[in-house]
């Protein structure tokens, strides 16, 4: 009787440990996937900003169609719904490679306002990029400001 009980207890215990282990590894993967996807989002933003910036600096020739396309994609990337990307528990220190500050979740309203500033600036940029080079140059300031303001408050130091 005692022995059966003990074996059952060990069995249940082992099963619990195994389940917990699976759950942990599952959420670990989900967390690191989310961080990678965020980095991909940032890369898309940087890539399209780079096309606009290259024209602003005079490194590449101004082309209204290309500039409009870059601004349109920048705006799309800035508008990704945050729910799938900014999973709780994926802050810097918890997941390798993450530089997300805990404030993203503790001050989610502020974070969403900060992201909204990029959505607004990039929407204005679609208009500006198609107008002329001077308008594009002027628009870069607002985009840069939105990136910088959010990074300042919600991005941690380099790992």
């Amino acid at each position, binding site marked *: 009787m005692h022995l059966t009980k003990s074996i059952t207890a060990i069995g249940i215990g082992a099963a619990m440990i195994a389940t917990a282990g699976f759950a942990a590894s599952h959420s670990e993967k989900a967390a690191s996937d989310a961080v990678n996807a965020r980095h991909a989002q940032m890369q898309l*933003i*940087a*890539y399209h*900003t*780079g096309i606009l*910036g290259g024209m*602003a*600096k*005079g*490194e590449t020739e101004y082309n209204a169609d290309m500039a409009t396309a870059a601004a349109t994609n920048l705006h799309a990337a800035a508008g990704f719904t945050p729910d799938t990307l900014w999973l709780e528990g994926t802050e810097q220190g918890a997941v390798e490679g993450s530089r997300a500050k805990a404030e993203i979740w503790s001050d989610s309203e502020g974070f969403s306002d900060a992201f909204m500033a990029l959505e607004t600036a990039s929407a204005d940029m679609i208009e500006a990029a198609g107008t002329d080079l001077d308008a594009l*140059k002027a628009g*870069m*300031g607002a*985009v*840069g*400001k939105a*990136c*910088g*303001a959010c*990074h*300042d408050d919600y*991005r941690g*130091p*380099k790992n």
Partner: protein
Amino acid sequence: MRRVIPVLLGCATLGAALGWVITRPDPLEQSYGAGLTPDPEAGALVFAAGGCVSCHAAPESEGEEMLVLAGGLPFPSDFGTFHAPNISPDPTHGIGDWTLPEFARAVTRGVSPEGQHYYPAFPYTAYQHLAPQDVVNLFAYMQTLPIADVPSLPHEVGFPFNIRRGLGAWKVMFFNEDFVLANASDVEVERGRYLVEGLAHCGECHTPRNALGGLEQDAWLTGAPNPSGKGRIPGITPAHLEWSKADLVEYFTSGFTPEYDSAGGEMAEVVSNLAQLPESDREAIAAYLKALPGG
């Protein structure tokens, strides 16, 4: 021995007297700015380039509130913690009852209206290069700013650094009146030198300091440990930074690095100041940086 003692005493007295003289704060220049017409609008640009709000705005303030120069921001250092004072036009707590010569001496010589040396946390070793017209314009602009009715916080500095007279000796050693880049090759580099070495005081963070807090001019703009203790402030000479002139100008305008990452921390505030200047000034800063040795 009887003969030696009076000689020694004499030497000591002479030394003390000499020390007293050389550590004496600069006198007021009563006629400062005479004949110059103040232009507060131009002063707003001097104010932006000088980065006054970055230190003197109340901590955590944003947007328009940043023009309320209540002070309070702490600056931890090896010598203690300094607090940026109230420099709003409040007559009691700020600079509202200062005269132009008093203001000019404070900003360009680091001496208070009461005749005391300021700690060099206030970058007067850079501001010494300010043109009188810029000082006059800045003074006029700052009088248009809102009043902050709050007292300045005292500095938390221990002995011997709390003896202000000692700063006179510091000034003798480290208040170098020459520009670091001795020869400016053209007008643009010269303007850039005025901005970088003077008004925008870039060296205060980007140049390493010696044990007494003096800037190591041999290592001008080659980067320095961050006084916060975390990380390093990067070197910005051509040997440290391979950005093109256009890259630099874009960075000063929008804060974007050549990789389209954004400026962070204190530099984000610097960028928001520089972005207010005419593009020619941002180009001049870039031209100066490219003209530094190592290019």
